[in-house]
């Protein structure tokens, strides 16, 4: 290939306040090529791209040389930068919810790009904007031009972002985690779209991501970053099949693997009959009350002791709502029995007493621990309430034992959550749940906010705990590879309905519904077999 080199970085070094964040990174992106920049959070992949394009705060020190289509980027003044960005370089950011201005219509925002860089106005700009929306395959482009960002779904917003990014036919497209905030099936569509656009316009694309699945299928070459250092660069095929650096090897091996230990217990722990969740819609004055919103349609489920039931679905499919309803943290209809006790018939103090037996671990390890309490208080709080007779020494001992069980050293007890990494926080959250010796633990996307390598460790920990204490898990996730490593049985949900359920291996091997197949395809699990 002797395509034109669009972006070339040599020995790029970026430092914040004397602290180097990226060190001696060299890379090159050719026209029509996709280079993936891969690494875990904090590895400096976004910073490199932003630094190369001069989008970091003024006090950042940037070393090395940067060339864009023959121009030295280090020598540009503010005006030239402005002409470059948006004109020659397009950006797509991760968060489609916040990267569009909520106060302007879609058409106006696209029009602004066209006006600033190409001087198009009025009807002409509108026609061009319409064309762009068609290019990113948005339905009803004429209507959408006058839509407000909040009226669009996440995927649609991301398409609008892409339309804005390609509005001026840039030569380089920088896509910073373009699909992380989207559902897996939508992810696929967006990436295919990017691929098409790239082929049509001959753009170079710098794809920043942490998801190796995406890289494997959508990139030509890959550059692996670890702690701001380049680990290796090469064609995707070669890097995935014969990784040269140790770090790449760990990253590739970090796919959660293994299966949960088989579950033999036959006693049913949790049984739900006709459990459904509906929310009343707000009623306007003097209007008829609109029909209730059905978040979860009535369904049955059961869970044996020591068993893991994976609940799979995209955002909005009602999987979390269902779990919350089962724990009676949300209002739910139907019959819920935990070890023979009717949870739905209890209230007040009796219900609180039962809560000890069903614990929960949340998705966001940053939000689920009170920032004002040290770890000891966080972990011991429930214990103190449910076992008020325990002395201080006993409480302390139980806390330390539990922390050790989740793989945290004893000296963490006096520290505060902000001092821990995401994985460690999630361990603290697990400790808080299991110290009460529950029978059932609801795991609500416990791994989705974590890096792959950390995910794997957490999965191993959770399986260990299950084997040791005979815990039952309700494991909620959209990530099928994690579900496969955790669950005995799977329940696939879509729009509040059960699409499919059954043995995990069977569902994942031979899905009976199209939806499950789509999910599997998106997660890259279907092609493997």
């Amino acid at each position: 290939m002797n395509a034109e080199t669009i972006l070339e970085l040599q020995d790029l070094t970026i430092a914040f306040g004397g602290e180097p964040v990226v060190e001696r990174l060299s890379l090159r992106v050719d026209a029509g090529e996709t280079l993936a920049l891969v690494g875990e959070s904090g590895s400096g992949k976004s910073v490199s791209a932003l630094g190369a394009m001069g989008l970091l705060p003024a006090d950042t020190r940037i070393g090395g040389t940067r060339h864009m289509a023959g121009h030295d980027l280090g020598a540009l003044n503010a005006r030239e930068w402005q002409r470059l960005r948006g004109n020659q370089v397009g950006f797509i950011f991760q968060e489609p919810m916040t990267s569009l201005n909520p106060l302007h219509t879609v058409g106006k925002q696209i029009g602004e790009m066209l006006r600033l860089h190409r001087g198009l106005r009025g009807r002409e700009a509108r026609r061009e904007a319409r064309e762009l929306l068609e290019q990113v395959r948005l339905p009803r482009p004429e209507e959408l031009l006058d839509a407000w960002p909040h009226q669009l779904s996440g995927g649609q917003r991301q398409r609008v972002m892409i339309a804005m990014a390609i509005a001026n036919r840039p030569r380089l497209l920088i896509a910073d985690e373009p699909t992380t905030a989207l559902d897996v099936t939508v992810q696929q569509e967006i990436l295919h779209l990017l691929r098409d656009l790239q082929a049509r316009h001959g753009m170079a694309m710098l794809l920043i991501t942490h998801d190796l699945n995406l890289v494997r299928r959508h990139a030509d070459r890959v550059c692996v970053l670890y702690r701001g250092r380049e680990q290796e660069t090469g064609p995707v095929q070669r890097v995935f099949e014969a990784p040269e650096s140790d770090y790449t090897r760990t990253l590739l091996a970090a796919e959660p693997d293994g299966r949960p230990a088989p579950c033999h217990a036959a006693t049913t722990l949790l049984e739900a009959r006709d459990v459904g969740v509906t929310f009343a819609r707000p009623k306007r004055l003097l209007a008829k009350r609109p029909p209730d919103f059905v978040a979860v349609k009535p369904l049955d489920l059961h869970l044996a002791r020591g068993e893991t039931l994976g609940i799979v679905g995209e955002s909005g499919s009602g999987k979390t709502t269902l779990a919350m309803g089962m724990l009676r943290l949300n209002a739910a209809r139907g019959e819920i029995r935990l070890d023979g006790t009717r949870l739905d018939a209890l209230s007040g103090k009796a219900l609180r007493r039962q809560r000890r037996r069903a614990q929960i671990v949340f998705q966001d390890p940053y939000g689920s621990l009170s920032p004002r309490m040290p770890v000891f208080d966080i972990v011991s709080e429930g214990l103190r309430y449910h076992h008020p007779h325990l002395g201080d020494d006993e409480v302390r001992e139980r806390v330390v034992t539990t922390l050790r069980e989740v793989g945290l050293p004893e000296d963490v007890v006096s520290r505060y959550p902000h001092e821990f990494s995401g994985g460690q926080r999630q361990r603290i959250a697990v400790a808080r749940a299991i110290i009460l010796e529950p029978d059932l633990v609801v795991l609500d996307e416990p791994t989705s906010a974590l890096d792959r390598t950390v995910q794997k460790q957490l999965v191993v920990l959770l399986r260990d705990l299950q084997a040791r204490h005979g815990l039952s898990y309700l494991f909620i996730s959209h990530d099928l590879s994690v579900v496969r490593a955790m669950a005995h049985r799977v329940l696939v949900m879509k729009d509040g309905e059960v699409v499919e359920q059954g043995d995990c291996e069977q569902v994942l091997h031979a899905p009976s519904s199209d939806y499950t197949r789509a999910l599997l395809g998106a997660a890259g699990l279907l092609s493997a077999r």
Partner: protein
Amino acid sequence: MATSPARKSRLSPITRRRLRIFRGNRRAWISFWCFLALFTLSLGAELIANDKPLVMHYQGHWYAPLLVDYPETEFGGFLPTTADYRDPFVAEEIEAHGWMLWPPIPFAFDTLDQQLSHPAPSPPDARHWLGTDDQGRDVLARVIYGFRLSVLFALALTVGSLLLGVLFGGIQGYFGGKVDLIGQRLSEIWSGLPMLFLLIILASLVEPNIWWLLGIMLLFSWLGLVDIVRAEFLRARNLEYVRAARAMGLPPHLIMWRHVLPNAMVATLTFIPFLFTGAITTLTALDFLGFGLPPGSPSLGELVAQGKNNLQAPWLGITAFVSLSLMLSLLVFIGEGLRDAFDPRHIEHAERAQVPIPQSEAPPHDPAAEREHVDER
């Protein structure tokens, strides 16, 4: 770790960072200490401005007129009433057989000086540093007592409103739904009642004293807080760690106390200084109109009124203006500093400016932390 564990367990890192930002704001920090010094001084107003000697020695005996009322007969007078130490006869008698130690300002707020060099209101001189008002009372003494009264009144009002506001706001916010709806409507109706008119009507029915004023104002002042606390509770009740606490089976009062309240207090605390200044201003306004504290009480509002009625004696108006504006400015500066210190965006900025990578361990050489540590000792 740069800090000792004992200190850590008392103050959470967030609190410490806020404290650091507050200290970094020099204007607020200096105002805080100035206000604290003035308030502490005014607490000892009896020792600074009084018409009784602090201690005296008479015919070989010690007396403490500040604490004990001695009859005039004790010092060779004729009347069995409490001795008036400013009476030339009594003063001469005591000086002849011992000595008296006077406070720096030998007048209390209600002492009528009978020996004025000019007719009242008399201008500032060596005897009355800020002059006297139109009844011959020392202005400086009245300012000191008035300052104390205003601040204490505002303090009581703030604490009271805080308790009521957090209680009602918390209950409305945490339970939400119907409780919230009904509570909000009730408090809207309640806040429609005109407080000033109520006070004026009250003034014609009873002799308003400080407790009446406090009570009536307390009935309304907490309403402003309810909205803030309620909003914070509404937000916090859906936070994941609050849900985790619910899943753990903790009863509502514990969750509110341990998990929700600390969050809500941040927004509330920033509101307090402004509540405080509001209370002082209201009290001053009522006094100025004559519907406030009973006549004769040391009040800044009454001083303002005197300044208005005696334009030929500018020291009255000027003193009132300077003391009020100084007090309110200090409070506003402190309030601003607090607000900035508790503003999460501000914290982010300060943090980014200091340490780029705040994860895991504390940075080994954080000059700010070390400086702070030295300050502690």
